[in-house]
């Protein structure tokens, strides 16, 4: 066979193509130049998206990974290019998203000399990545890239960074792709649960009278949606989900209760507190879902099935902790679960549910538009079938409450880190994979201004995304906290916006503005006809709140509710027009 002498730069492309990558989000610069130069030889296999800020590149890779189940790839130069990726890496770390970031580094001889655009990115990202690499020898380049992808997508997935000095990119070597499988140290996670664990779990489930399933992001990552529903249906167990577990059970399913936690449904939180058994699946008892841990679900036995053993007994002590692959465990568990009806329990929960619908903002007539109404109408006009990418804040919680997801993985959002600015770039990334679905970005006026530069990328790529800016003139969620806990002293939460229609025009995409509810369907239909990015600004009530709410650190069922509709309408009437 003819020898293939390749540069390090070429090896990078050869290797990532072998990992199934066909799109890379990046930004060129001094130390990554050799790799960008080599890109010219791989144009037929790789589409490169030029972002406008490296944070955008990481969120795009992240959005692509969430939408596709593949590994997203971002690329940047050393120094500021690399440090701009830190937020995106941390976002992916907290939500267990497989992305690989490749950064250029100053030549080996210059490392440690504070050279121009030198930063120790390998060390910088240790706390925000699953793993990181610095490739000091071209002989290790191909095997390192192969290992990096394996690390990113295996076990509990996560972000990986590979730092490659410029002279390693320029070096040449006879290229042989490493055929041997990647092998990593340590106790590899078993796929299967032990028989004792399964038996213990089954006993608890079969004896429970008031069980609840807590559905987390791990359900998607392990592909266990069907098994969870099967478990719920067999033993008549209602399901509450975390923010990232949205869509794990079809919203219309009779056993679906809704979201749990700080802005979760009243009924779900009550059910959790009152339950005699919690079956936590692929979730980690984050403080936003538990409220006060000390009083969390005080009378229940707890089963926790989770791939990462360090999550078990971390925040909430459990009775049966099963560290393994969720889907495999479910398949083992199902034959041991006896069929039964929990009629009393389900009836109690429905009682709680009807109580909260009396407080629902979307059912009342108002002159001003409310964020919740916008989201409910987008849901209606897209038949609940869009891929939604949300940012962070009030609109994010409203989406989780009012957009009823019927299919798995149709909501992409930054849950763990809560990264403002995530949605626009993540949606651009997702658009490279999910072309069949309408993609809607739901974003606040604060969040959009954090990464608004990526509008240029959306236009350049003609990304098929619809951007709904829910504009309330405030950093709404922070303002809500100020109203509730800081006597309405609105320090630095009123935020001005540019004229979004002019922004749209300047960037070269169609723009609409809506401030009346009856205009929404018409605009959404118009938007649907347009290929490529579209921006719609919804001007909404400034002082609306997200209800219900569990104040940070309070007991989970100690919720602040929206006033009942009748009462609420009276307050609306009496309110001064300036509000």
């Amino acid at each position: 066979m003819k020898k293939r002498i390749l540069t390090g730069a070429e090896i990078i492309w050869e290797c990532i193509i072998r990992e199934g990558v066909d799109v890379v989000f990046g930004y060129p610069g001094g130390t990554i130049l050799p790799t960008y130069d080599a890109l010219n030889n791989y144009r037929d296999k790789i589409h490169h998206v030029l972002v406008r800020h490296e944070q955008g590149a990481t969120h795009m890779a992240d959005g692509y990974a969430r939408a596709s189940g593949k590994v997203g790839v971002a690329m940047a130069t050393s120094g500021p290019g690399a440090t701009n990726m830190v937020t995106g890496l941390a976002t992916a770390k907290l939500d267990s998203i497989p992305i690989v970031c490749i950064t250029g580094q100053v030549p080996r001889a210059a490392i440690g000399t504070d050279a121009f655009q030198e930063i120790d990115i390998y060390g910088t990202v240790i706390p925000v990545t699953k793993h990181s690499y610095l490739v000091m020898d071209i002989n290790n380049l191909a095997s390192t890239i192969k290992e990096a992808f394996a690390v990113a997508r295996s076990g509990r997935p996560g972000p990986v960074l590979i730092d490659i000095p410029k002279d390693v990119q320029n070096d040449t070597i006879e290229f042989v792709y490493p055929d041997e499988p990647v092998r990593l140290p340590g106790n590899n996670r078993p796929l299967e649960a032990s028989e004792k664990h399964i038996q213990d779990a089954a006993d608890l489930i079969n004896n429970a009278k008031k069980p609840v399933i807590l559905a987390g992001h791990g359900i998607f990552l392990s592909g266990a949606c069907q098994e969870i529903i099967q478990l719920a249906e067999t033993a008549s167990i209602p399901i509450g989900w975390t923010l990232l577990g949205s869509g794990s059970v079809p919203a219309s399913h009779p056993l679906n209760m809704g979201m749990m936690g700080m802005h979760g449904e009243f009924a779900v939180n009550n059910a959790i507190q009152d339950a005699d058994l919690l079956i936590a699946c692929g979730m980690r008892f984050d403080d936003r879902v538990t409220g006060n841990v000390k009083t969390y679900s005080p009378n229940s036995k707890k089963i926790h099935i989770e791939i990462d053993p360090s999550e078990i007994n971390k925040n909430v002590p459990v009775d049966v902790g099963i560290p393994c692959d969720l889907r495999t465990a479910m398949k083992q568990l199902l034959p041991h679960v006896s069929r039964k009806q929990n009629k009393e329990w389900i009836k109690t929960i429905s009682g709680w549910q009807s109580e909260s619908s009396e407080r629902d903002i979307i059912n009342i007539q108002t002159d001003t538009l409310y964020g919740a109404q916008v989201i409910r109408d987008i849901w209606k006009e897209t038949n609940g079938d869009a891929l939604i990418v949300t940012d962070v804040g009030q609109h994010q919680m409203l989406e989780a409450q009012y957009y009823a997801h019927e299919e798995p993985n149709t909501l992409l959002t930054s849950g763990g880190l809560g990264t403002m600015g995530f949605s626009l770039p993540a949606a651009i990334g997702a658009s490279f994979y999910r072309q069949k679905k309408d993609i809607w970005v739901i974003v606040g006026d604060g969040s959009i201004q954090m990464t608004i530069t990526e509008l240029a990328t959306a236009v350049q790529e003609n990304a098929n995304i619809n951007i709904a800016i829910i504009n309330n003139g405030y950093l709404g969620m922070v303002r809500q906290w100020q109203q509730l806990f800081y006597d309405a002293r609105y320090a630095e939460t009123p935020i001005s916006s540019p004229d979004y229609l002019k922004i749209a025009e300047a960037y070269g995409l169609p723009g609409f503005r809506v401030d009346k509810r009856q205009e929404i369907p018409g605009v959404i239909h118009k938007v649907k006809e347009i290929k490529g990015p579209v921006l719609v600004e919804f001007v909404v009530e400034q002082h609306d709140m997200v209800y219900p709410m569990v104040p940070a650190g309070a007991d989970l069922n100690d919720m602040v509710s929206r006033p009942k509709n009748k009462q609420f309408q009276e307050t609306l009437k009496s309110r001064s027009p300036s509000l």
Partner: protein
Amino acid sequence: MKQTLIVFVQDNPGVLNRISSHIRRRNFNIESLVAGRTERKEITRMTVVLNEPDKTKQRTVVNSLKELIDVYDVIDATEIDSHIREYALVKVALKKDDLGAVNKIVESVHGKIIDGTGDATIFELTGYEKEVEAVIEALQKYDILEIVRSGKVAMVAGNNSKHQPELTKSEPNWTTSRILESY
């Protein structure tokens, strides 16, 4: 109670940084951390002593250290029969008359003089923490110039398979490609 961990890691540059950063970010104070080579070329062994009393946090740090890619295994030696020992050098400015008395103190832990030539004497001490501490305490009445302590190294007693680390590499289980199947 102090927690003593034996951590087996890949001998890669930066691995020490990774381990200490992982412990530091949980705001644990590292009392000592000693790393060195082992009977196997590619494996570095660390003994880490931590000052975190909370049992839940202790368990979490062990489990999460095991999740690091460079880590083969972690043995928590705190509650199993093990030998946790350290080494210290003590430099004392001694009067000739005191030499005999000091020698007696030091010999109680099999310590010895390793440098008695100049105007100061250097003693070498080895032993369990308590022993080393006791000797240092007893030496306080003399003119101690310097003390250096190695930090602790630990070895589990016996050959119980329950306390043997898993020092093998394996292929990871794939899961994320399953996201596609859930559509």
